[in-house]
């Protein structure tokens, strides 16, 4: 197992290096550079001063040299500096816990709603309950998260006053963003659990369990679901990626601090170094979470080989 973990981690290195190069190159395509961004931010610089600053920041060097410098900086944990001169790593690092808490809460909402809904639909397959559950799931998939969040704010924060409008710290402020974020993923999980459980319930070992007198609930929850959850674990890795992506919109909507909000703010304020660092950190979190999911998948199903998960 240790060998698997080490190999799996080693496979992420070229992906992360490639991701860093891709983001670096994309940022080079943005019109203007760090000096023009500072001028747009209010700094008054003469053409000579601009040139000197470009020289100091190394922006006049060939692209490959800049890329090498950037990658070497990453190895040393240096993501560059914002227009105001602050460390990007410090800026992004301060926001990571808030985003991770939101993503974990969204995933919890998805699991708590999605798995029981999928089990219910599978146990009552081809009945009205199944149709209603799956209809609800498709609807859940179709509702824009930011609109759902807005409607939840209107209902539960503005009208009922149960939760704050803006998501400051604390549990109260986490509920509405987590529900807005998690419902669509709950819908995806419900559909997957249903189809996976139906497949599991048709296996021979289920017939054996029934023949031995196991109750319907026991067969479903103890025997069927256990196997049905194997593909669900893989899906959870992808869903965390969806949640990280969607956190950009949800954090902005609820005014919640986080890397997602930092991404949007940095685009609107042309803070390219911060944008570059934020996107790279989110992608790295996504890649690493997928490694954890793969390892967990391997624990659940020892037949899995490297690259197959």
């Amino acid at each position, binding site marked *: 197992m240790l060998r698997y973990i080490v190999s799996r981690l080693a496979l992420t290195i070229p992906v992360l290096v490639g991701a860093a190069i891709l983001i670096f190159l994309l940022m080079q395509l943005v019109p203007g550079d760090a000096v023009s961004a500072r001028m747009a931010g209010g700094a008054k610089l003469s053409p000579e001063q601009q040139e000197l600053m470009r020289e100091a920041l190394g922006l006049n060097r060939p692209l490959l040299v800049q890329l090498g410098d950037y990658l070497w900086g990453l190895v040393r944990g240096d993501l560059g500096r914002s227009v105001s001169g602050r460390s990007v790593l410090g800026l992004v690092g301060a926001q990571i816990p808030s985003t991770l808490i939101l993503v974990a809460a969204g995933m919890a909402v998805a699991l708590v709603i999605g798995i029981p809904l999928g089990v219910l639909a599978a146990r009552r397959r081809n009945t009205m309950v199944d149709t209603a559950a799956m209809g609800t799931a*498709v609807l859940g998939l179709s509702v*824009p998260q930011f609109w759902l969040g*807005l409607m939840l704010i209107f209902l539960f924060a503005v009208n009922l006053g149960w939760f704050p409008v803006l998501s400051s710290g604390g549990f109260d402020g986490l509920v509405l963003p987590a529900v807005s974020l998690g419902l669509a993923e709950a819908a995806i999980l419900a559909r997957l659990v249903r189809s996976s459980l139906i497949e599991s319930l048709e296996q021979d070992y289920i017939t054996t369990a029934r023949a031995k007198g196991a109750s319907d609930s026991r067969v479903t929850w103890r025997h069927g679901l256990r196997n049905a959850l194997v593909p669900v674990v893989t899906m959870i890795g992808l869903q965390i990626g969806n949640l990280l992506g969607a956190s950009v919109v949800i954090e902005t909507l609820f005014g919640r601090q986080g890397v997602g909000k930092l991404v949007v703010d940095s685009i609107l304020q042309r803070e390219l170094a911060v944008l570059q660092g934020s996107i790279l950190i989110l992608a790295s979190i996504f890649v690493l979470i997928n490694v954890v999911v793969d390892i967990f998948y391997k624990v659940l199903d020892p037949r899995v080989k490297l690259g197959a998960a």
Partner: protein
Amino acid sequence: MIDASPARTQATETVHLWRRLLSHRSVVVGGILFALVLVAALFAGWLAPFDPLDTDPTNALQPPGRDHWMGTDQLGRDIFSRVIHGARPSLIMGVAPMIISSIIGTASGMIIGYYGRWADLMMTRFSDIALAFPPILLALTVVAVLGPGLWSIALALGLSGIPFYLRMARGQVIQAKEAPFVQTAVSIGAGDARVMFRHIIYRVFPPILVMMTIHVAGAILAGAALSFLGLGIPPPTAEWGTMIQDGRQFLVLSWWMAFFPGVALAITVFATNLLGDGLRDVIDPRSKGEPIR
């Protein structure tokens, strides 16, 4: 006497497929809803009772009523007319990325899957890298490069969707390459292009078609989200994501400003998802495609 000519067999299969599609509840309901949205997008000028850009400050923030079925916004513009006109940019944001991704992704996936070797290795590594980014983040980065706007969003979402098609097409081609009907075609001297575009394409197309439908739904949602963030179509053009953002400012006073564009958006995506589900059930029941977002 039975006519078993290939043309007749293919025609019968097509008729059979259409029958199955038209008797599938999701396809019918999704199709009808999507057709309604399409009609709204195509004939917005005739269907909308007011000009979507006409302001009338004396009628600002009117609740839904007889004159304005969905109320008015802060400038007195008719929300119903704006919702109808908003269908067009939303559909463009859904369909254009799908066209970009599916053409580039499927063609390159088929070529690298068929020829393999270094091109395959390079492109799969590249798609591994692209898939390291949640799609909306990659799209956000591309929008940062291109600047806000409808076509920027369409291109951004189109580029971020390519790896999904590439992987799907590549996998299908690798499987199909070994199939007896392909081997037979090769053995009787069919060229590479003929093998790919006359034989293998039939194996590749069904799952790609399902992915295309699901992609449209995801792209509409992602496009609206980008517009909501202020990176989409600038005001005063009627677009659902931007309208929801406008409504956010007036949520306490006039909930209808954000409510109705959201309902229109949800119905459009719901229709597309239903169509995608139905298509998958009928033409590619083995796949378990989930949204590209």
